[in-house]
């Protein structure tokens, strides 16, 4: 009989890795790494705000508060863009605001709420072994939907990243598709964070695309396979040895990348 904790861990890591591998390739191609990082920082802050507010006002679900907080962060970035600030400035400022809120709320969540320290740790570093089996089905459905949407729009995103001007001439709607891509990156970041935590999500989103481009330029399959195998390996070792999953994911990814650099 397989330990249910390991089963949860394997399923959570697998789901996160497939979505991360796919969106990570797009992030690499479309040069939206900064946006992906910004999303993760907003998610951290939003989760902590949601946690604290929901503890004080029991009637308010934490997810609802988190979503509103995320929307406010996005609004800050959008307003700055509309006012003519550059993309880097808008995102950088929003990251600073999100980090400030995360610092503030993590302190009070840890200090004032029962299980607060554990909650903060879970937001940051996740705990894939403790995802309840009842939630796995929902995550599976959400993951399938995300993957289907990404695959459906994949070619459009690639063409816009390659030549947005010609795409605008041929079909139009470049701006709208870019916003859809940004939303998908944000949703994927939320999805991955829920499963494996925000800090490991940084690794999951960045490394597969980087490694795939090192091995064979243009191979999305390599990115997804790498993401999946490294996640499974990390979960199994983490379960056996007790080292955090995120750390192992980083060790495996970085080691492989350094090996590829040396080999070339």
């Amino acid at each position, binding site marked *: 009989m397989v330990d249910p904790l390991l089963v949860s861990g394997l399923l959570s890591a697998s789901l996160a890795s497939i979505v991360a591998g796919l969106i990570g390739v797009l992030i690499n191609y479309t040069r939206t790494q900064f946006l992906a990082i910004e999303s993760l920082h907003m998610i951290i802050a939003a989760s902590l705000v949601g946690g604290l507010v929901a503890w004080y006002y029991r009637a308010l679900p934490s997810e609802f508060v988190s979503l509103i907080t995320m929307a406010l962060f996005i609004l800050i970035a959008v307003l700055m863009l509309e006012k003519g600030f550059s993309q880097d400035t808008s995102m950088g400022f929003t990251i600073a605001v999100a980090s400030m809120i995360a610092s503030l709320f993590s302190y009070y969540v840890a200090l004032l709420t029962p299980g607060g320290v554990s909650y903060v740790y879970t937001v940051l570093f996740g705990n894939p072994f403790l995802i309840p089996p009842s939630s796995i089905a929902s995550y599976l459905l959400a993951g399938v939907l995300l993957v289907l949407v990404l695959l459906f729009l994949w070619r459009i995103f690639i063409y816009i990243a*390659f030549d947005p001007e010609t795409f605008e*001439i041929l079909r139009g709607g470049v701006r709208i598709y870019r916003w859809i891509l940004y939303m998908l990156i944000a949703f994927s970041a939320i999805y991955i964070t829920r499963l494996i935590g925000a800090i490991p999500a940084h690794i999951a989103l960045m490394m597969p695309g980087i490694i795939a481009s090192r091995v064979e330029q243009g191979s999305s399959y390599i990115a997804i396979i790498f993401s999946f195998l490294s996640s499974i390996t990390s979960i199994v070792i983490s379960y056996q040895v007790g080292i955090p999953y995120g750390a192992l994911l980083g060790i495996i990814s970085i080691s492989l990348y350094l090996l590829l650099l040396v080999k070339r």
Partner: protein
Amino acid sequence: MIVMDHVSAGYGDRIVIEDITISLKHPFFAVIAGPNGAGKSTMLKVLLGIVKRKSGSVSVFGIDPELDKKSIRRIVSYMPQSSAINLDMPIKVKDVVAMPIRILGEDDESLVREALKIVGAEKYENEIFSKLSGGLRQRVLLARALVKDAKLILLDEPLSHIDSKGRSEIFSTLYKIHEEREVSFLIVGHDLSVCALYDPYLILLNRRIVAHGWFSEIAKPEYLAEAYGSVLLREGFIVMGEEHG
């Protein structure tokens, strides 16, 4: 027929082209030449409807490109300057060339192969675009402009990064397509030497139209000097103020 009537256009508050009036009867083979910043690319983009006019009217086969982009998409093909493209993108050559037809909902590998054959790049079909030399990339982008069945093909500096032999071959191919398929070409270019053999319709532009007419009538020192700012006649060669052919 392509008609531009007292057209001014630009970006934000900056006017790039001013009071442009020209009409070209289909099928035409025309070249727009002028110094950097003259508004050559802007003129193409006004015909596509992606740069809004400040004043004047434009008609492309009876269609206003700002009002009916969908119809323009079907009949006009475009090759941008290579600087507008993400050249590091890991995308295959055949996917680059197929872009216009796939976006329009068609996907025909034979059209892709034929377009690549026209530009002499058929053996690079499965190569990664970013791994090709500058000249080959340019040929692939040209193939992309030719893959679709268009009435008007707008090419923005299609011969850049291509050696002189290649330029002659490609220009000859474009002229042949124009004659055989009755396709109109409007080409932005600097290299006027390749034009001489074909006597295209020449539009000299420097914010305004300096002169327009057949190459043999217009490619003269007095017009070129006005367009480019300076001309040096040396041992039978004309050397123009900026980049020159």
